[in-house]
């Protein structure tokens, strides 16, 4: 393992400290926790709290700030944060208008956030939750855990955050978050594995000439492992899977996110994005905005994900509102 770290046990804490030291105008670290909260907490509004395992930076701390999240709770690498930490975050940002928890759909995250929610409710805080499950690579089944939450989560942060900033109620913010979740679909692919610092070796092996379509952001398996194909073919496969789940007609309007998983150069992301744009153009689908870059990574994994958010006027307007965070 070759990593630019001091010690595997301190990667999360030192990263959070680094983020807070680098961006004191936007965020601060809560003492003795791995929680980042926004410095601007004056506005009495519904508070948004998200988080999850670390290793997905800039998610989620990079999206804390005016117009997006009020707090992000960082767990160990690829491990959900614990209820006591999540509760601290809730208490730190609640201004009496209630708190919305934005959770990615993984068993650990859901359990720990739910436990924190119960603890917060016991202390008299109004809390609601939404669970993001945008990854179409996983079959949707009510009998199992269902779909994973991946890069589309950032659209939920953005739109719910914008509405909260305007003074909407907890119910309204939850409703819009649920609407975004319903209209957001993502799918990823990986060219290489990643190494959890405390484990020290790759979580899985992908041979030099192979890639995995539909891979999750912790290296969970996808739909198919196959020989590496061109960026255009990858883009086409991802778009066709997204379209199958959320059919788009001519004149529909979407926001597109082409997200790097950590080790993919911007050059390659734009090559993928180019093809995605062309395919949407050919289908006469209006692209409201395209976001290309790293939003939800998987340590040093190479690969990308593509997200479509189907927009209406309300969602588009909220998406375009300004936000002051590290990474939006």
């Amino acid at each position, binding site marked *: 393992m070759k990593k630019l770290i001091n010690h595997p046990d301190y990667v999360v804490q030192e990263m959070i400290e680094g983020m807070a030291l680098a961006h004191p105008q936007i965020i601060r670290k809560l003492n003795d926790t791995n929680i980042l909260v926004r410095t601007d907490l004056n506005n009495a509004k519904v508070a948004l709290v998200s988080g999850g395992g670390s290793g997905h930076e800039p998610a989620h701390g990079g999206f804390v700030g005016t117009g997006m999240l009020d707090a992000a709770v960082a*767990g160990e690498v690829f491990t959900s944060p614990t*209820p006591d*930490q999540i509760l601290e975050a809730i208490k730190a940002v609640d201004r009496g208008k209630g708190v919305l928890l934005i959770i990615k759909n993984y068993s650990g995250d859901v*359990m720990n956030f739910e*436990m924190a929610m119960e603890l917060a409710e016991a202390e008299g805080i109004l809390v609601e939750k939404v669970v993001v499950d945008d990854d179409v690579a996983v079959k949707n089944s009510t009998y199992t*855990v269902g779909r994973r939450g991946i890069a589309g989560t950032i659209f939920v942060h953005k739109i719910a955050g914008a509405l909260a900033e305007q003074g909407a109620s907890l119910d309204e913010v939850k409703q819009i978050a649920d609407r975004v979740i319903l209209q957001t679909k993502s799918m990823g692919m990986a060219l290489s594995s990643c190494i959890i610092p405390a484990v020290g070796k790759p979580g899985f092996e992908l041979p030099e000439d192979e890639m995995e379509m539909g891979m999750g952001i912790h290296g969970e398996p996808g739909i198919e492992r196959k020989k590496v194909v061109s960026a255009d073919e990858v883009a086409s496969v991802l778009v066709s899977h997204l379209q199958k789940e959320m059919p788009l007609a001519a004149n529909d309007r979407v926001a597109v996110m082409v997200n790097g998983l950590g080790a993919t150069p911007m050059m390659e992301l734009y090559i993928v994005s180019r093809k995605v744009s062309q395919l949407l153009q050919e289908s006469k689908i209006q692209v409201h905005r395209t976001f290309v870059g790293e939003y939800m990574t998987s340590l040093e994994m190479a690969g990308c994900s593509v997200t479509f958010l189907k927009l209406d006027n309300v969602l588009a307007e909220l998406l375009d509102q300004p936000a002051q965070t590290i990474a939006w």
Partner: protein
Amino acid sequence: MIQVEHVVKWIQLTHQKIVATKDKLTELDQAIGDGDHGINLARGLDAAIQNLSPDESKEDLGEVFQKIGMALIAKVGGASGALYGSAFVHMAKVCKGKKLISLAELAQVIEAGAMGIKARGRAEVGDKTMLDIWQPLADYLNEHIEKVSWEKVQQFLFEQMEKTKELVAKKGRAAFLESRSIGHLDPGAVSSTYLFIALCETLDRGE
């Protein structure tokens, strides 16, 4: 009879076993999870031991189980922290105010732990989770309460653990593998097996 000192020894012995098999657990978890189960559990058990009062006589079983549960919730993280933690917190509830419990009560305590896991994880027996150790063990102890052979309990635990190999994962990250999870042991079931092997050894020595 089982008292606080047994529980303390039990958790210490479990910690030793988990530390000793950390690499094996990591490997199992890499196959169908994300590879950190052994590391996280060892950290949480260590915290649980540090948390226990040095003067055991001052506490009852309920308090001790509660402390262990809270430490696991706060320090293990992930799904396993929430599940193990919920199990111990549920066990604490049925032991409230008790300084010692009988073997028959122990079966009820483990049953309560299984209920905690079920409620928190919305899991059922057969979903390829740690519940596939907890529930069968509770049932086994209930049936054999008149005369328990700890050696036979250990054998039973290993059999149950092996059975998880053939199950399709329905919960946790392993569920994303669907039928590809067949052929792998469930890491949570394996760590739960070690937990109860440690219990068997503690009680075998103690009586």
